[in-house]
């Protein structure tokens, strides 16, 4: 099994990559909203905004230093409600 330091060393770049992809998704959403004048329309915007809110909530879960349950469990339960 890996030591705490090995966990970070082994997976840091992979985590960096995944966080950059999330940042890019949020930037992509903002750019798309700007292009559409901030009016997604046809009710699709509501569903999209709800999914986005779940993502933002998930990011909040990841920020917690001492969570009461495993972060993966918390996120899976969160996404199940989306």
């Amino acid at each position, binding site marked *: 099994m890996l030591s705490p330091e090995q966990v970070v060393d082994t997976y840091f*770049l*992979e985590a960096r*990559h995944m966080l*950059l*992809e999330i940042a*890019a998704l949020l*930037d*992509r959403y903002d*750019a798309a909203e700007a292009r559409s004048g901030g009016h997604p329309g046809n009710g699709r915007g509501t569903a999209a905004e709800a999914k986005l809110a779940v993502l933002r909530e998930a990011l909040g879960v990841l920020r917690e230093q001492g969570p009461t349950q495993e972060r993966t469990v918390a996120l899976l339960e969160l996404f199940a409600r989306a």
Partner: protein
Amino acid sequence: MQIIQPHYHAIARTAQDYERMAMSGVVAVAEPAFWAGFDRLYPETFIDYFRQISEFEPTRAAQYGIRHFSWVAVNPKEAENTTLTREVLKSFPEFFAKPTVLGVGETGLHKSSKNECSSLEAHVEIAMKHGQLVLIHTPHLADKAHGTKRVLEVLAGMNVDRDRVWIDHVEEQTIRPCLDAGYWVGFTLYPITKCSPKRAVDLLEKYGTERILVNSSADWGPSDPFTLQECVLEYRRRGHSLQEAIEVFHNNPCRFLGQNPKFDIKPIRVETAS
């Protein structure tokens, strides 16, 4: 769709990669000189490497109908050996005369040391003296912004034709100053450590497609030549036309590399105006 892979370290890849690239539409690759994974000690080692990429590798690619071009350089990681760099630079004109060598690259910076900057300057100088194209590597990860700034500072102090210089591995934090200064830029797609196909398409949508090259590098480390095709797919999936994709992934390499007449593949147009 016809694709040109403008930055590809073929000697680190298998024949199967050539075969699969050919089957996916790749018609040409350009191979910059690269770091071998260890610091080389002898000028002769570089000269044999340059012979490999300028003489042998085109024959291997040709078996799959792919044109192969190359570049010569001392890698920035080896620039601390100033004697070696000087000796290897002397061999460049011999390779500029080869029918598939397009210019000097990848030179550039790794840790942005004084010797690296001197080596970059010497590489650009010899390229300009001999009318060659230049491909510049910018550092990865933490050194990216600082190293790119230093590259621009070094170039600003020289008499260079900016249309003939390609600054590679740009990302969101470095693309703007390179484009604003009038250089070509490249996005290098890696599975983890550099730009991703999705982020590259974001950048194309934000900055447009002029003076931009997309490549997957693909060397002996964790890398994948087909991140380029992933990027083509992502670009098309977002609604960009086939011709728009051809402009980015085929015609832009023709426009930049074609400044050297040895690169004789011409831009193509597949759609007629309606």
